[in-house]
């Protein structure tokens, strides 16, 4: 397969998928399982993207690793699909059947000989904020991205190299897998079609200064809540106050923390209501005497997800407060207080909580990253959509790169994008 593109002719049959999250994985697999050569680029050290950092999915409260495992099995079995981690595109040129994509490969400092034995982790003394846990804890600078990593291979943070541990780590590896000398490198891929599945990043809570995120460790974001509740998170799944480790029994979930707000994200991120319903369930599952307040504008539980809303609502210890809070202040005892107006009875409240979760929205990764100029357009929010719907330009987007979608909708859009890409290479064959 022309991974390095050297032997590819003018009409390449290879499909490139950019982004190894659930959308990218799905698109890549659907195309590969239809008999096409696919290259999947992931800029991080492991596939799985945002969903791999989720504790569970709504509404079934099942674990994302469950579906990822099946997808990873599919990847393992499929020789047509080539996964390149630590890679991101920096330029796209050409057109359908003949795209040239410039790819930057970040150094992993670990090569494919890695057996994931962990000797390098034992050897390093450098600690870095754990990216898998959004920096809520620290991890050895030579680390497995997570216990379910794909590929199951270690990565060494540049900090360890900067600390001068390169030679030591190299010596610690019995398999010749550590390469401290790795540099960032660039190479070209020739592909026939491209699927852009670069996903999203959580909206920066520091932009929401009224919610005092930086002023209290007990004010966290929804994605951090997922880690807090996850068995492989910083607390092994115990939902506690980050400030003191005490159980978080009075919890507030603030919806539209950034979304539906002209000052931040003008669109609705679609998933946050359901995510918070799920967070209410996390808390209630752990503590019989827990109380959860959900501050919201509209509860957007579309289609059958309505039933998830109804069943969470049936719990009398979950209160739904229709109110966009004005601000959060930290009280004398360090507990954060939420201040605002309950719109239903017009009461002004000033309520203390053990833990406040800001349901920050999804921002397309394209706001910060590279977006091809050919074939795609970026809308005002940073979502990327194909330029023309009628003509098959050979480049498509899917998942949250294309719009704020939940997992099912992302996979739906990924499957559709895979078909478009298949059409593109078949038509230019």
């Amino acid at each position, binding site marked *: 397969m022309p991974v390095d593109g050297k032997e590819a002719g003018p009409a390449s049959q290879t499909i490139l998928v950019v982004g190894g999250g659930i959308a990218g994985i799905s698109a890549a697999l659907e195309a590969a399982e239809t008999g096409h050569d696919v290259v999947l680029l992931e800029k991080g050290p492991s596939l799985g993207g945002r969903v791999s950092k989720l504790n569970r999915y709504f509404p079934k409260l099942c674990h994302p690793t469950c579906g990822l495992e099946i997808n990873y099995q599919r990847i393992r079995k499929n020789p047509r699909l080539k996964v390149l981690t630590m890679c991101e595109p920096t330029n796209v040129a050409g057109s359908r059947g003949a795209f040239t994509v410039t790819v930057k490969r970040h150094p992993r400092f670990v090569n494919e000989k890695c057996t994931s034995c962990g000797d390098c982790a034992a050897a390093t003394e450098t600690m870095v904020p754990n990216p898998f846990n959004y920096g809520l804890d620290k991890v050895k600078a030579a680390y497995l991205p997570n216990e379910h990593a794909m590929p199951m291979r270690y990565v060494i943070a540049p900090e360890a190299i900067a600390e001068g541990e390169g030679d030591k780590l190299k010596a610690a590896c019995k398999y010749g897998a550590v390469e401290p000398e790795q540099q960032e490198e660039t190479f070209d891929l020739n592909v026939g079609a491209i699927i852009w599945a670069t996903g999203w990043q959580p909206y920066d809570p520091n932009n929401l200064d009224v919610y005092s995120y930086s002023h209290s460790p007990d004010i966290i974001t929804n994605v951090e809540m997922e880690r807090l509740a996850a068995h492989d998170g910083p607390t092994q799944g115990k939902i506690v106050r980050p400030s003191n480790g005490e159980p978080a029994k009075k919890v507030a979930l603030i919806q539209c923390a950034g979304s539906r707000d002209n000052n931040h994200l003008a669109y609705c991120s679609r998933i946050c209501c359901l995510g918070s319903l799920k967070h209410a369930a996390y808390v209630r599952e752990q503590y019989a005497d827990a109380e959860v307040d959900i501050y919201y*504008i509209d509860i957007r539980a579309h289609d059958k997800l309505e039933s998830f809303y109804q069943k969470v609502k049936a719990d009398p210890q979950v209160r739904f407060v229709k109110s966009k*809070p004005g601000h959060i202040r930290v009280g004398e005892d360090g507990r954060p207080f939420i201040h605002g107006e309950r719109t239903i009875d017009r009461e002004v409240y000033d309520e203390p909580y053990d833990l406040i979760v800001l349901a920050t929205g999804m921002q397309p990764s394209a706001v910060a990253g590279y977006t091809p100029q050919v074939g795609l357009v970026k809308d005002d929010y940073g979502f990327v959509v194909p330029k023309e719907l009628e003509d098959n330009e050979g480049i498509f987007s899917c998942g949250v790169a294309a719009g704020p979608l939940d997992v099912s909708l992302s996979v739906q859009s990924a499957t559709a994008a895979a078909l478009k890409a298949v059409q593109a290479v078949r038509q230019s064959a």
Partner: protein
Amino acid sequence: MTAPLPNPGKKYDLDFARWVYDNVNGGDKMALCMQCGVCSGSCPIGTNMDHGPRKLFMMIRAGMQEAVMTSNTPANCTSCYRCVVRCPRSVPVTYILQDLLAKQAELGYRAKDSNENIAFAKSFWWSARAFGRTDERLVTAKYYWSFGPAEFWKRSMENLKIALGFIKKGRMHIGMPHSVKDKKGLKAILDKAREIESRG
């Protein structure tokens, strides 16, 4: 001049919202309110208000014109703009409230708490128009006086210490009011502006 209310006396008037959109400064933007409540929840003296901006806007949509025109919510706005900068829909709440207060007065409604605001605004404008500048001393005196001699005396006495302190520190002057040089030109401009506004 502001257009008269579409159907005065009607408790619920479906045309009232349109009237506000068309006649109140910023009123058209009020249409974008999604009733999240961040304005009322951010208001420093929202607890003094009978409804608060969020509910007042809903009342406008529901056509509750009488209740809106007699509400004390506009009079209790301190113009801190916290609601404005926090509003997710960019509704200029402060401006709407300020102008609703003006409209209440203009159309002859006696909204609760508003007499002080109106009196103060009139005293302020008197100074601005007469001298082109605000003479804090005279504005205050004229404001107190608008409530009658007894109230004038009471309020003056309550704040005498402050006034004397300011005089001592040179922050309140005694003598002729500060004034623009071109008082005549200024008045001409303001009178012309009023005339333009009246013709609509």
